[in-house]
């Protein structure tokens, strides 16, 4: 009888017996895909060097994860896409002009030191790509701050160096920025499209927003961190960003220059290193915004997104603790 013959093959497992289709690797690959528009714009503006830098980052990330896990006899998890995403994010955070050993060192630091040595996916305290970048910035400060002019010339290997909009703003002020870009409309347009000096993947606001819209639509990120991050930055930029007077700053320039959009939508929202409770995420994002603007307006660097997110990463576990969810029906218990 068929029933009897089946019996010894029954699968026994614990409930629930149905699972959603969402998987960690699908999330990682989707986030990777959402970064592609901005990466492509970076390749378009900064040429073959940018493509090589991105490729070196991704390949090193994947290889070092593979080598580390093989060496320690662990399950190799390169196919979950998380190392590749880290590599891509790091590459997008580098200037296109760096020598080719820079992406290799950075990727190794990101994947092996920041992620694997802390226990692998899920256990790292800091955003791996950002630690990779911070390591490079501190170790190679000169190389990491040479910015090339976006040329939109795909086959050009050499490039003209220039300053980033935030660099100009910091060193020479808003008047100089206007002089470089002509008028305000042109400034906004160039920043929006991404025709400006900067890290490979951070310049094109429109491409980043397209990717971000995809992530929000699919529910891979929620609005909490980006909105509080950008909102706080905008308010601070508006109040304190002007020369001489309060309430004279230009929040739009701050939002669409530097790594603000890349950071707010794609780096601060990293599941592992941000708080998991939504209310806590609002505080986390606000902290990122505050620290970014503090560094941009008062600190030694023109850009502060990276350090802001890394500092807030430290607080993520504490924030989760402080914003513990309330159990259903808790109110009555509190009254006791």
């Amino acid at each position, binding site marked *: *009888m*068929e*029933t*009897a013959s*089946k*019996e010894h*093959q*029954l*699968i*026994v*497992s*614990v*409930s*629930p*017996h*149905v*699972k*959603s289709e*969402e*998987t*960690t690797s*699908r*999330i990682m690959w989707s986030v990777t895909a959402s970064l592609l528009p901005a990466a492509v714009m970076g390749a378009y503006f900064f040429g073959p060097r940018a493509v090589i830098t991105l490729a070196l980052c991704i390949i090193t990330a994947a290889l070092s994860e593979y080598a580390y896990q093989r060496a320690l006899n662990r399950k190799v*998890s390169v196919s*979950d896409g998380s190392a590749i995403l880290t590599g891509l994010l790091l590459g997008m955070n580098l200037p296109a002009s760096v020598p080719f050993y820079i992406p290799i060192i950075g990727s190794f630091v990101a994947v092996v030191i920041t992620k694997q040595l802390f*226990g*692998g*996916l*899920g*256990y790292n305290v800091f955003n791996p790509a950002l630690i990779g970048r911070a390591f490079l910035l501190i170790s190679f400060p000169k190389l990491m701050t040479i910015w090339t002019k976006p040329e939109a010339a795909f086959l050009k290997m050499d490039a003209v160096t220039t300053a980033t909009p935030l660099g100009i703003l910091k060193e020479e002020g808003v008047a100089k920025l206007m002089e470089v870009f002509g008028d305000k409309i042109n400034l906004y347009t160039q920043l929006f499209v991404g025709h400006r000096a900067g890290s490979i993947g951070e310049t094109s606001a429109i491409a980043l927003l397209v990717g971000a819209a995809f992530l929000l639509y699919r529910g891979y990120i929620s609005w909490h961190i980006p909105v509080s991050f950008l909102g706080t930055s905008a308010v601070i930029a508006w109040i304190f960003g002007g020369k001489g007077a309060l309430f004279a700053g230009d929040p739009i320039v701050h939002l669409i220059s530097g790594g603000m959009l890349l950071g707010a939508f794609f780096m601060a929202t990293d*599941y*592992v290193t*941000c708080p*998991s*409770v*939504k209310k806590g995420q609002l505080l986390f994002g606000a902290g990122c915004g505050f620290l970014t603007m503090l560094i941009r307006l008062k600190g030694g660097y023109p850009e502060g997104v990276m350090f802001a997110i890394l500092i807030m990463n430290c607080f993520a576990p504490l924030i*989760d603790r402080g914003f*513990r*969810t*309330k*159990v*259903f*029906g*808790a*109110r*009555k*218990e509190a009254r006791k």
Partner: protein
Amino acid sequence: MALATFKGGIHPPDKKELSKAKAISPAKPPKRVVIPLAQHIGAPCTLSVSIGQEVKMGEIIGTPEGFVSAPVHASVSGKVIAIGDFPLPTGRMAPSVVIENDGKEEWTSLKDSPGYMKLSPDELKGKVKDAGIVGMGGAAFPAHVKLSPPKEKPVDVVVLNGAECEPYLTADYRLMLERPSDVVEGLRVLMKIVNVSKGVIGIESNKPDAIEAMQRAVAGDSSLKVCALEVKYPQGAEKMLIKAAVNRDVPARGLPMDVGVVVQNIGTALAVYEAARYGKPLIERVVTVTGEGIREPRNLLVKIGSLVSDLIGECGGFSSEAAKVISGGPMMGFALYSLDVPVTKGTSGILVLPEEGVVHAEDFGPCIRCGRCIDICPMGLMPSMLSVLSERGMYEEAKGYNLFDCFECGSCTYVCPSKRPIVQLVRLAKSMTKP
């Protein structure tokens, strides 16, 4: 109009189309039944028959011990051929009585009460108790206990649970379509027992015809109301149902009666009606036999104690995809290791699932702290935290994250992208520490 609901929850594919169109039909009389003496939460019954004894349908074979218990009755007429420990669908062993069916379907004498609504609340409650009625949604808590709130907890509304939020199951749905007035009569009996003048029937909006049928059945009675609920799991969990249907928050670790509510399931209400009207004990129930792994999904009226293997045979047997058999729904049911286990009073469905979707132990990954489980936990817990603490053996710390408020609905495990066995880790932590 916005549908009533609760905060959190998930939307698994409901798969009810497999069996929803199948009218309830009586299962073939079983050759023999295995009736466990512990089918309910609470004390098991004491055996009141012996081997070789002839019994009639509805005769008591197990007498309750203590208040939180319910009698067990013979579901067929015939001879007791064995008494001993047999496995329950949960995998545990329980003392059971095996009766060989003589096929005569002879009933023991039942007390007919055409004027049952004139009986006193206590008399009606006695009938519910004597009929061995337990919560038929799965938990199998003795019904008369829920109907005996202490004086300091006045009850003012009875909520009937027609959510049937577990995917696949259609037993309650068919009852609401086919026997709406009997279900409503059961609700009236329940209301009389606890002396309230308000009854609410909560039904998920994916069963519009059931909502309509029940609305017709309550028409003209201003004390009764049908409430359409959002389709969301676990809408039928007691606390979530109460929140949606009457907007009250059952306190954490509290009971529905703390907010003046008694909840009963649709099948239970029908059993209550039959007990009050005909004195009929709970010896049969509707079981949905369904899933992609069964040839002909059906809704069967099954004698308690019938074996799962017989029901599967009656529904055309396994299809080639069959890999896993579950007693109950896919979210909270138990996977069976043997098909020779009986249908009990709490068995709402027999589900045969294909292999896809089974996550093997070695395939789950680390928590990536995505927060999905926190967003959807209907109890407002942090399942990710509970799972990590349990994994590390930090059971006492897990209590600080309200470990014992989890009722194991499985929503967190459903949404987890790392496929972590969160509920199982919660169960482990619960078993390793005390509330």
